[in-house]
């Protein structure tokens, strides 16, 4: 009998939502029927979602892809001898050579889609835990310095330098410190955290372990939203494996260091993505935002010094330690260094994950990678940075994606999600939705957010109703937005006006006929 050929069918939840489980079952069944030996690996997704379920076969030349595969296609794949890389209408050639993938700069996502996410051996064979091994040889201050020097800024959206957070926690005097991972990825149009957790969970665990060594923490929590059950399952399994192989727990890799890690499940509250609300939730309370100061780095979880970072921030740490700060900061531009895993979503032909160095333009992502809209109609607006990000018109598509360049045009990068709308979008409706979402998800602590959002929905309804006092109502809406921006406690209330005002400014024609007062 010849040696078994390795076939990859992703276990990523988007692939599952498109039928990967049925495809995998059909492949196993066909192989059995035909007496062929295969080694089925459930890898992560390459992040080219229009090709999912993307089946890959390991050949001497490299991994050959077929996709999108439906269960009914499986028999014909075997007929075409896909196990030897045979020709088929779904054949894509060498996966690594697909331009969408080849033109990326995958540092954080280097392993994603390549390896079996739950195999520690696979992780180790692909540079896994090289960062932790180096960190174990360094004094903690040197680990913090490496992260500082890399220029890594918080990838959750706030873009605060990660190294400075760590340095503050390192300097704080306490018997107990915590590492908390913010995995409450609630922004529509984002899925990079989810992919890391499902498709390369050891990378996040390694990043958190390095953070723990760096600041002297012995306990960590990953707060994952309840909408991500596959991520929770993958993390729990990976944590259990890491524990049994001494990558977690006591005496990590024979060192005196201890780090215990636990997954906690959220419960469907968008506001818990705000770091202080998340800490409240972890403590078992309502997810109500805390006033800052004190900063979580000084008084965080259970009142103790706490590093709280986004998934991608922590997942970027292993490669920074493994290859050095200079390697990482060599990517990017200005004060936005390294890479950002961007997510092309909504009405887009080739949606998926694109990790690039900062500095790529929106147009390159939308057209060169994304191929325009899925509907084939012109792109009218894109929302970058989640529900709190402004809507940008075509005239701004040449903006470089870098924190400062985006801010200069009134935009924001946020967590790197880009949601595309075609010309059928009604921007007044989107503006109303922004206020409505804030009304549903506000924690209720501060008045501008709690009441302002509801008043915002009402005022927008009056504007689009075409009343005689429309101009005054638009004044009122801008005034209300001003109050929310300047008077809210956190980003929820202070940034909800961004999509609203951008819709008013860039797409005034959607707020009924008549002139819209832009100057107010």
């Amino acid at each position, binding site marked *: 009998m010849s040696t078994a050929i390795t076939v990859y069918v992703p276990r990523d939840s988007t692939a599952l939502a498109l039928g990967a489980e049925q495809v995998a079952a059909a492949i196993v069944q066909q192989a059995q029927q035909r007496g062929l030996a295969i080694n089925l690996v459930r890898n992560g997704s390459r992040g080219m979602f229009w090709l999912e379920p993307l089946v890959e076969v390991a050949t001497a030349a490299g991994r050959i892809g077929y996709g999108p595969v439906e269960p009914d296609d499986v028999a014909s794949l075997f007929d075409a001898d896909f196990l030897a890389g045979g020709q088929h209408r779904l054949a894509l050639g060498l996966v690594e050579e697909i331009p969408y993938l080849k033109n990326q700069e995958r540092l954080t996502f280097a392993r994603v889609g390549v390896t079996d996410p739950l195999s520690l051996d696979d992780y180790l064979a692909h540079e896994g835990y090289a960062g932790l091994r180096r960190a174990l040889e360094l004094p903690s201050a040197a680990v913090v310095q490496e992260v500082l020097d890399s220029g890594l800024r918080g990838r959750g959206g706030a873009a605060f330098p990660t190294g400075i957070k760590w340095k503050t926690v390192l300097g704080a005097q306490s018997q107990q410190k915590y590492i908390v991972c913010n995995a409450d990825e609630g*922004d529509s*149009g984002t899925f990079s955290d989810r992919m890391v957790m499902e498709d390369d969970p050891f990378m996040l665990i390694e990043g958190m372990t390095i953070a723990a060594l760096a600041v002297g923490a012995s306990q960590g929590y990953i707060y994952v939203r*309840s909408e991500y059950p596959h991520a929770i399952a993958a993390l729990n399994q990976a944590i259990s494996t890491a524990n049994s192989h001494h990558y977690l727990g006591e005496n990590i890799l024979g060192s005196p260091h201890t780090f215990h890690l636990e997954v906690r499940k959220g*419960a*469907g509250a968008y506001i818990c993505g705000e770091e202080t609300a998340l800490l409240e939730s972890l403590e078992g*309370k309502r997810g109500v935002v805390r006033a800052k100061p004190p900063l979580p780095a000084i008084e965080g979880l259970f009142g103790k010094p706490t590093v709280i970072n986004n998934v991608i921030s922590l997942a970027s740490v292993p490669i920074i330690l493994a290859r050095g700060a200079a390697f990482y900061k060599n990517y990017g531009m200005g004060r936005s260094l390294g890479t950002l895993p961007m997510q*092309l979503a*909504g009405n887009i032909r080739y949606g998926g994950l694109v990790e690039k160095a900062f500095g790529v333009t929106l147009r390159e992502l939308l057209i060169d990678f994304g191929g325009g809209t899925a509907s084939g109609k012109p792109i009218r607006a894109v929302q970058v940075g989640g529900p709190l990000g402004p809507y940008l018109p075509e005239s701004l598509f040449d903006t470089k994606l870098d924190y400062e360049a985006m801010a200069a045009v009134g935009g924001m990068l946020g967590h790197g999600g880009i*949601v595309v709308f075609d010309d059928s979008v009604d921007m007044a409706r989107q503006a109303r939705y922004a206020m409505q*979402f804030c009304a549903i998800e506000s924690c209720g602590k501060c008045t501008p957010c709690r009441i302002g959002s509801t008043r915002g929905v009402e005022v927008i309804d009056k504007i689009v109703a075409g009343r005689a006092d429309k101009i005054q109502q638009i004044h009122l809406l801008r005034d209300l937005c001003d109050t929310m921006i300047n008077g809210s406690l956190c980003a929820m209330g202070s940034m909800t006006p961004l999509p609203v005002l951008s819709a008013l400014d860039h797409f005034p024609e959607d707020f009924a006929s008549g002139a819209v007062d832009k100057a107010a």
Partner: protein
Amino acid sequence: MKMHIKQGAQVSQAVPSQPSVDLDQVNAIIQKYQTMPGAMLPVLHAIQDALGYIPPSTVPLIADQLNLSRAEVHGVISFYHYFRQQPAGRHIVQLCRAEACQAMGADALAEHAKAALGCDFHGTSSDGQFTLEPVYCLGQCACGPNMQIDDDLHARVSNDKFNRLLRAKRGAL
């Protein structure tokens, strides 16, 4: 095209009857998590996983054993969208309502779902089979509109696919 479900005013917002609650089981759950720092959410999740919702009769037990007031416990349960205070239908249908899915027609799908099930969001179809819930992002944003039926995710859901999936659930009873 429409699901073969009776529609009309009398069918919406059907609330399945409240089953009796095994408080010993609830006590055992609370005791399991009691010593955990920040035990509240793990306790609530475990109760909902076991019973399908968090019955009001469990609130005094949770309060007593976590050394909190009943108001504090109720406050937490009612804060989080995920926690249910009444039983749901046999299956929970979650439709994504967020921007990326909107860009692919989620609003129209929501209207179709409401008509097909004869209930609004947070409501249950008259036969008690399906509870319709909004969800703000399932993280499948490149393949909208998305939905989840119980634990199963589905991407690029058209009206026809919605009907087919629900029919399959119904058939699988």
